[in-house]
């Protein structure tokens, strides 16, 4: 019984390491998804001349469908903002966007700075002409590229480190308890 307990504890610690690695990977995947979201929005706004609610609905549905958990959040975020604009036209877009970004789950795998960049995206969307929309979206892409490059560069090493640390900690615990 004792050994089963030790084994389970070691497995839990090892699992925590794997979980940390997975979270790092998810952070990168989400940023890539937000980048894709901005490309879609750019197409909707510049190519089809869609209004913001129309663009948010189209892109939101496309990004949400077939995804679950955190991976569905970028699409759901757009759909929540679209619903607010539809139901309460008086709320400015920037306010609705900011508030919905703040409402993303507390454990959402996104750094504070990435959240701030995402919130800032809403400040100038809808303002002025089509060129301004393009510039706003490109500015977000530029800023996000830096984070994506950093995560990509670090991801292999960090994920390996988290997994190894988890396994090492599990083994250490086993040795210590046996």
């Amino acid at each position, binding site marked *: 019984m004792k050994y089963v307990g030790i084994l389970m504890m070691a497995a839990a610690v090892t699992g925590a390491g794997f979980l940390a690695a997975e979270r790092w990977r998810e952070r990168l995947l989400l940023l890539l998804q937000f980048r894709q979201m901005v490309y879609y929005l750019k197409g909707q*706004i510049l190519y089809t*001349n*869609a*209004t*913001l*609610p*129309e663009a948010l609905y189209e892109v939101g549905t496309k990004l949400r469908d077939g995804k679950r958990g955190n991976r569905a959040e970028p699409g759901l975020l757009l759909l929540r903002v679209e619903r607010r*604009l539809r139901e309460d*036209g*008086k709320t*400015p*877009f920037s306010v609705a966007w900011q508030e919905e970004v703040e409402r993303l789950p507390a454990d959402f795998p996104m750094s504070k700075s990435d959240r701030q960049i995402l919130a800032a995206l809403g400040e100038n969307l*809808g303002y*002025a*002409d*089509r060129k*301004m*929309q393009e510039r706003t979206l490109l500015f977000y892409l530029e800023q996000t590229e830096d984070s994506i490059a950093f995560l990509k560069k670090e991801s292999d090493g960090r994920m390996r480190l988290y997994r190894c640390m988890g396994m090492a900690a599990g083994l250490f615990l086993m040795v210590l308890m046996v």
Partner: protein
Amino acid sequence: MGIEELREIFKEPLPAWERVQEIRVRIGYPILFRTEDGELEMKTCADRRLLRELLGIFSKHSLYAFEDEVRQGFLTIEGGHRVGLVGKAVLYEAGEGPLGAIKTIRDISALNIRLSHEKKGCADAILPYLYNGNGEVESTLLISPPGAGKTTMLRDLIRRISNGTAYGRGIGVSVVDERSELGACFQGVPQCDLGRRTDILDACPKAVGMLMVLRSMAPGVLAVDEIGTAADLEAMRYVANCGCALLATVHGTAIGDLEKKPVLAEMVRDRMFSRYVVLKKTPHPGTIAGIFDADRREVYGLS
């Protein structure tokens, strides 16, 4: 957009929705409602904030999507209502765009919200004059001053011709709705009933759109609102030569006005239309002032 939403915006009791024709919002002045019976002044004075808020709501926080329309001084909003706007015009500078043309309008100081109405049955009185003995539709031009109901009449005419009447079977109608006023399309779906055999090309310039739908949808009747340019004339000539009947509207107060305008005079000379329907505002919008044949002989009341 309906009365409840407007009530929410203006926060004051409004007159009956069917009676409101125009809402005038000018910075520093009370909001005015023009109804069939006259004007109604509200207690609320418009300010810059209200105008900005209204523009945000009307454009769905996406004024960029209405750039071309703002340049022309109006935007058509959900429901087919037209919002005219004035302010300070910003012109293109050298190398930026067509010199002297309007780039945009800033510091918008007044809005004229012209409400679109769907009055089913308002075209019934003119229908007997618009069919020939074989149940075919005559090419018809509706003439009226602004606010006299020509768009409302055209909308009902399209619906009736499309669904079929006592005078003829239902005919396929294609509508080139450049300003989205006829069908009031929202996300591609018309909000107004234009009939079961009607296809709508929304937000497309008339001259280009007429040729497009002629080739793609093979309509029996083609309808457009507010014609007047040389390009419109060329496209309509092509359509008429293809055996397709035309339904169109134009600003004017009398049949004689057509000959004073070069493009329209040419249409009359070419006998492009075989019926002219003149509408007037009094005693109510949509009142028939006269119906004329291709030779501009009065036919109203003879049928």
